[in-house]
Each structure stands twice: as structure tokens, then as C-alpha cells.
């Protein structure tokens, strides 16, 4: 099987509050930085994948003539699914060089579509009438069940945010960098009990993009600024558009399918993972992710985090950019998680994990509605 490499990866020039750019231009800004990173131009791209905007808009705007297109849109992990689909397309010879773009005016809402839900959709009929009000009061719904079943304390949930702020403190591009304590988290404003403000993600503007090609071609991309990073394995799944209908309120079925599949394809065991990213829209995501990926047994992740295993200096450095809780979160955060995995594999992350060779990146889409997982390596898959 042909190996697939990441030969370009970059975020938008700015992150945070970018009122001077439309959402489409945030995609383009990230794409142009990524093309420059790879030493390529739009003319070198023959495969295009995006979510949030249509591939048609991006192809036209950037001047790309694609022969392979993917507009899979299942929420913030869509870009992980694009990577998985691009790997298959490149291996099948459907195209040679794929650009995956993300851009989102999540905070400034410039040129961004509104959030609307049909009253006749499943969630519109069977969740919205009860006052679900976007992600903060919906994505958080299963957590009290987890807390009762496994005895997780409020302090343990808060600790997720504390640890990620430690990582963000090492990252000049992180939105929030000042250290916080468990008490700070528990004393921050209640958003949707049991969640406080500091246990919820940021809302910012930004973007990111990746360029993938076959490993044979990767060595031909002579002008790239960095050595290739390799895709070792991928996984994907979807479960439900309604969080009330999850099969199990204490575990994501989509995580449990996408994550282990990616690690199996990569041929790695848990002890071989040097670096982990788990899409953290809210503080419980890393807890569900650690357990669904199999790094912790059921109910063990809160102690694992409390004991600083995922913190700086811990055995499993996780969300080392500061995560959606402290780094940035435009709405569809999955691209930023992969950017951090790539930086770690390139050895250029602000909070670089020494000698990291394998990174697992798990994304969520919707509210436990979907998942994509990508395993990155700093060398071709053995």
C-alpha cells in the first residue's frame, strides 16, 4: 500500500479576532500559507476537500481545477474524515495532491452562514422544544450520568481545563495563557450546570489547511519548508444528530469506532503513542476520548488526568496547544488539533514533546454525532 504524507500544514496568519476577513478568505489565507509551506501553488493541487464552505467555492476562489472533491461535512471532525478519504483517493490514484481547508469566522461572523435548525428536523422536533440552546447546554447533557456512574467529582472535571491552560501557557498563539486553578474554574460563571465558563471552549476566528500526497511524490516536493509527516492510520464514524439518543451516555460510539480503527490501521499499541490530541469543545471530551481510545479503562480517565499524566511532564502529553478550551476554537476545531499533531511530528511545536514519533488525533463532530481519527508519524509507517 502506498504511504501518504503531509507535505504542507499551516494555520491562518492570525488567530483569535479577525474581523477584517470573511470566512471564505480565512480558508484562503490558511490555504495560501499551506501552499507556501509546501512550496507549491494552486496549480499543483488536483484534489480538494473542505467543510463549512463548499468545495466549489474554494476551488473557484483559489484557482484550483480538481479532479477529486470531498465535501464531507459532519461537524468539527470533518477534516479528519477528509484526511481519511484523501488517503484512499491518493492510494487509488484518483488524484495526486490534495488540499484540505478550514476557515471559520466563529467569533466575528463575517461572511459566515447563520446557525439555523429546521423545526421539522429530528433535533428540531425532539430536542429544541426543551430549551437546548447550542452546544454549551446540549453537548454537556450526558456528563452528570458519567459523574454518577463513575464517581467523577466536579474538581476532576475542572482539572481538565487547568491542565490544558498549563499547555497553553507555553504557546504564544494561545488565546488564554494565564495559569488557572481548580477553584478558579469552579468559581467561574455557571453556563450549564455542571459546566462553568472555563470548562467550555473559546469562540474565535481562524483557519488551517493541510496538503497530502503520496510518499513517492513527497520527496519531490523540494521546496517544502519541513520534512514530510506521515499518515499511519485513520478511522471515522457517525452516531446520532441527537445527544439524547446516544447508545451510551458515558461513551461515544463514534469515538469507539474511529479511534481504535485508526490505531489498528497504524499498527500501534497504546504504549507507542507519544502525543495525543482529543478535540475538547468541553472539558468532558478528553475524558470520554481517553476511555474510548482505550488509554484508560471505564471511569479511570478523571484520575488519570488528575494525576497529571496528560499534563506537561506527564507520560501522555495531550492537547499540547492548549486545546479548544485555551488555544482557539472557531466552531470546527478538528483542523487545529491536526495542525498541532503535525507540528509535534515536525518537532516545531511551541510546547514540543521531546522525541515524539507518533501522534494520535481524535476529533468529534456535532455533539458526539461523529468522529474522525488520524494517526501521524514522523517517519514512514514501518
Amino acid at each position: 500500500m502506498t504511504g501518504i504524507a503531509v507535505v504542507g500544514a499551516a494555520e491562518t496568519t492570525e488567530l483569535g479576532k479577525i474581523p477584517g476577513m470573511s470566512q471564505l478568505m480565512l480558508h484562503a489565507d490558511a490555504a495560501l500559507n499551506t501552499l507556501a509551506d509546501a512550496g507549491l501553488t494552486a496549480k499543483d493541487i488536483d484534489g480538494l476537500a473542505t467543510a463549512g464552505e463548499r468545495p466549489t467555492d474554494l476551488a473557484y476562489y483559489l484557482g484550483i481545477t480538481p479532479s477529486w472533491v470531498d465535501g464531507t461535512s459532519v461537524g468539527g471532525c470533518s477534516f479528519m474524515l477528509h484526511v481519511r478519504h484523501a488517503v484512499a483517493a491518493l492510494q487509488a490514484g484518483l488524484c495526486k495532491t490534495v488540499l484540505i481547508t478550514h476557515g471559520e469566522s466563529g467569533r466575528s461572523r463575517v461572511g459566515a452562514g447563520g446557525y439555523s435548525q429546521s423545526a421539522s428536523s429530528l433535533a428540531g422536533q425532539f430536542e429544541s422544544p426543551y430549551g437546548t440552546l447550542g452546544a454549551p447546554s446540549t453537548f454537556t447533557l450526558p456528563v452528570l450520568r458519567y459523574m454518577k456512574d463513575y464517581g467523577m467529582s466536579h474538581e476532576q472535571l475542572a482539572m481538565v481545563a487547568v491542565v490544558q491552560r498549563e499547555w497553553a501557557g507555553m504557546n504564544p498563539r494561545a488565546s488564554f495563557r494565564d495559569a488557572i486553578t481548580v477553584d478558579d474554574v469552579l468559581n467561574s460563571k455557571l453556563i450549564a450546570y455542571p459546566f462553568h465558563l472555563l470548562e467550555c471552549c473559546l469562540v474565535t476566528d481562524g483557519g488551517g489547511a493541510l496538503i497530502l500526497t503520496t510518499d513517492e511524490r513527497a520527496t519531490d516536493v523540494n521546496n517544502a519548508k519541513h520534512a514530510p509527516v506521515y499518515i499511519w492510520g485513520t478511522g471515522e464514524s457517525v452516531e446520532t444528530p441527537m445527544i439524547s439518543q446516544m447508545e451510551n451516555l458515558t461513551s461515544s460510539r463514534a469515538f469507539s469506532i474511529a479511534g481504535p480503527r485508526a490505531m489498528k490501521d497504524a499498527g500501534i499499541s497504546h504504549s507507542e503513542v507519544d502525543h495525543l490530541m482529543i478535540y475538547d469543545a468541553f472539558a468532558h471530551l478528553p475524558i470520554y476520548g481517553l476511555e474510548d481510545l482505550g488509554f484508560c479503562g471505564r471511569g479511570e480517565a478523571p484520575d488519570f488526568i488528575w494525576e497529571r499524566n496528560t499534563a506537561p511532564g506527564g507520560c501522555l502529553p495531550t492537547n499540547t496547544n492548549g486545546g479548544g478550551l485555551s488555544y482557539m476554537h472557531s466552531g470546527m476545531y478538528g483542523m487545529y488539533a491536526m495542525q498541532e499533531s503535525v507540528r509535534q511530528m515536525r518537532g516545531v511545536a511551541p510546547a514540543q514533546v521531546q522525541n515524539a514519533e507518533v501522534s494520535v488525533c481524535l476529533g468529534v463532530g456535532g455533539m458526539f454525532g461523529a468522529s474522525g481519527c488520524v494517526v501521524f508519524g514522523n517517519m514512514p509507517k514501518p
Partner: protein
Amino acid sequence: MGKPARPLPKPTPETQHFWDGCKQGELRLQRCDGCAHVYFPPRPFCPSCSSRAVSIFIASGEASLASYVINHRPHPAWDEPYAIAIVELAEGPRMASNIVGCEQTPECLVLDMPLVVQFEVMSDDISLPLFRPAGDRT
């Protein structure tokens, strides 16, 4: 009244029977004639075995509190913090709802507490299935 109405469901042909039932004070679920799987939300086929041979039946209205949040962000239809709940019906399926007849506090909303359905008229067409603590605490 006086408050803006909540977002109300717009039934589809596949869910009309459920909302008609709510109007009549019946919580209607569906059961597969073949594999006996009981499911929600409504659809004219079994999501477990794909059979189109399914029947509608009236559920007991008994449930327990599976999980919830107490929303503190402003919602046009609510003045105070309110709980959004996931209840588990005695017949098996879970559904989103609100808990009424009970203070919206962690002390009063105890996981696994028994609940019973109570229909609240929202419009000429829609009554919502809400749940109150069992044992008539209202």
C-alpha cells in the same frame, strides 16, 4: 403567557402520530412486529432490523432521570435557570424533555429519580411531553 413561545416542533408525516398522541394525552412509542425492538423517535420502520412491519403503542408514561444540565444562559422562553433533561422511559428508549413540578436545582433533581409524563399544551397543534417527579409532589 407573555413570554415568547419556545421553539415548537413541526411534525412530519412520519412523526405526526406521536404529536397527535401528545395532544390526546398519550405517549406513543413504536415496537417492531418482527424483533420486538421498542424505539424512539418515531419512524415507520425498525432501526434495529429494517422491517417496515411496526406497531404504535401507548407507553406507560413512567420514566427515570438519566441525565440533565441546568442551563444558565438566557433563553427567550425561560426567565430562570432551567433543566434540560434526558429521561429514560420504562419501555427502554430515552428522550429529551424538561422536569416540571420540581425546583430546578441539583439538590432536587436527583439522577434516577422516578418520573411520570405530563402533557403541556403549547399551541393548538402541539402539546409537549414533560415529566414530573412520580408520587405527585406537585
